[in-house]
C-alpha cells in the first residue's frame, strides 16, 4: 500500500535555501562584529529566527504539511513565548 503523501522538494530549491542560510550566517557574524550595543543580540536572534523559519518551511517541508501540523507548530511557538514572558516577569518583579 502506498500511502506517501509527502511533497517532493526539487534539488534547486534546496540549493537556494542553503545559499540563503549561508548568507544569513555570514550576516550574523558581521553584525555581531560591529558594535550595535544592545541591538546586536536582537539582530542576531532575529536572523536566527529567520533561519529557523526557513529550515522548518523548506527543509522540514512544513510549507506542504497539513493545517493540523502547522497549527501544532504555531501552538508550541506560542507556548514557548508564554513561558519566556512568565519567567521574565517573575524574574523582573522578584
Amino acid at each position, binding site marked *: 500500500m502506498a500511502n506517501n503523501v509527502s511533497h517532493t522538494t526539487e534539488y534547486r530549491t*534546496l540549493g537556494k535555501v542553503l545559499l540563503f542560510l549561508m548568507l544569513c550566517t555570514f550576516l550574523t557574524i558581521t553584525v555581531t562584529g560591529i558594535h550595535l550595543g544592545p541591538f546586536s543580540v536582537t539582530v542576531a536572534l532575529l536572523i536566527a529566527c529567520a533561519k529557523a523559519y526557513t529550515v522548518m518551511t523548506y*527543509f522540514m517541508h512544513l510549507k506542504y504539511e497539513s493545517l493540523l*501540523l502547522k497549527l501544532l507548530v504555531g501552538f508550541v511557538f506560542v507556548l514557548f513565548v508564554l513561558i519566556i514572558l512568565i519567567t521574565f516577569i517573575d524574574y523582573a518583579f522578584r
Partner: protein
Amino acid sequence: MSEKHNHVEEHRDDEASKLGMWLFIFTELLLFGGLFIVYSIFRHEYYQAFRESSLELSVTIGAINTIALLFSSMTVAMALTAMQKNDKKTALIMIGITLLMALVFLVNKYFEWGHKIEHGLYPGSALMPLLDRGHLLYFSLYFFMTGLHAFHIIVGMVLLFICLFKVKNGSIHPEKYALLENGALYWHLVDLIWIFLFPLMYLIS
C-alpha cells in the same frame, strides 16, 4: 489459494508516524528552550563575564561547524528528494555526505573541547570552582548545552546510519520512506538548535 492472494496488507500509517516525530521534536525544542531561558537570565545578570568567556571560543571553528550543519541539512533533504524520485544511488551518496559532515562537526568539537580540557576547563575540574560565578555559569552552560547538542548529533548519526543501511538493502524504497523522512526531520532539529546556539555562545559583542 495461490501464494499471491495470500498476501496480507501491511498495516502502516506514514502520516501518523510523521506526526509522532513532530510531537517528539516539540519536546526537544522545549527542552532546549528551557536551557536557553536559563542562559538568557544568567547572561543578563553576568553580562561582562559571559562576554569575556565567549571570547575564549573560536568563532572560526563555530562558523565551520555552522556551515557543516547547514550543508548536511541540505544533503539529508536531498536524500529524501532522491528517494522520492526513485534515485537510490543519489540518496545513498547524500546520506553519506550528511554523515561525513556530522563527523566533521564532531571532530571540530573534539578539538574545541580538547583545547579547553587541556587548560583545565571542564565540569568537575579543579579550576572550575575557582572561577567567579559568571564565568563558572558560562562554561557550565557551554559544556552542558553544546554537550547535549553533540549527543543529539551522535543519535542523529546512528539514525542516519540505519537509514543508509536500509536504503542499501531496499527496505526503504520510493513507496516506503517514512523512516528516512523522520530521520531527516531529526537531523533538521539538530541543525535548528545549533542555529541558536552559535550566535548565543560564540558571538557575544
